[in-house]
């Protein structure tokens, strides 16, 4: 059974204080690892897809990396508008398209 564990559950940062969010996973065969951002009262918004260990992707202050066991979402010099819940999900190889989601990490950035 695929599993995704995200840590910490919540993270409070000062504006400009860089940090990383962790997503540990177990999957029979990785089809892709997905990062989403979710603002309160809204649906998840797609950020990145990573397909193989060593892959990295960047978008503004966010950088996602992938190893065979975990993914990190690095946030460089965060701003208050980066405050949100960040969701990690994995898809496994096989005949279906299902994703397994972690519980999310709630990030709060104080000005």
């Amino acid at each position, binding site marked *: 059974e695929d599993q*995704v564990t995200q840590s910490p559950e919540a993270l409070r940062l000062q504006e400009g204080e860089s940090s990383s969010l962790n997503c540990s996973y177990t999957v029979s065969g990785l*089809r*892709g690892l*997905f990062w*989403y951002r979710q603002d309160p*009262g*809204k*649906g*998840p*918004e*797609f950020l990145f*897809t990573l397909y193989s260990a060593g892959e990295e992707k960047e978008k503004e202050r966010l950088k996602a990396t992938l190893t065979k066991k975990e993914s990190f979402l690095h946030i460089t010099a965060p701003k208050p508008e980066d405050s949100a819940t960040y*969701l990690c*999900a994995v*898809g496994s190889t096989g005949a*279906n*398209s*299902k*994703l*397994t*989601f*972690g*519980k*999310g990490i709630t990030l709060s950035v104080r000005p």
Partner: protein
Amino acid sequence: NAGVTQTPKFRILKIGQSMTLQCTQDMNHNYMYWYRQDPGMGLKLIYYSVGAGITDKGEVPNGYNVSRSTTEDFPLRLELAAPSQTSVYFCASSYRQETQYFGPGTRLLVL
């Protein structure tokens, strides 16, 4: 493109009532999904569909039904609503097994 749209945004049901949550996508995606999200929990897959006329159960299908008569629409039916179905429901779509794009959600309260 509107992407994935969901109606209604919010609904209060009495125990035993039934309702249909609507989901429409205009991206010509063949795969569609229904998730529920409870506080502090990850997204749980209820049902999914890989094309018109084809549906399959996800992780938590009990108490729900779906149909897929067109590529665009994937309604979720709740029969005999129960307090345990109080949740936020998200519809998503994807092209094959690629990135899933989510709608804004329907907040349901069963009293």
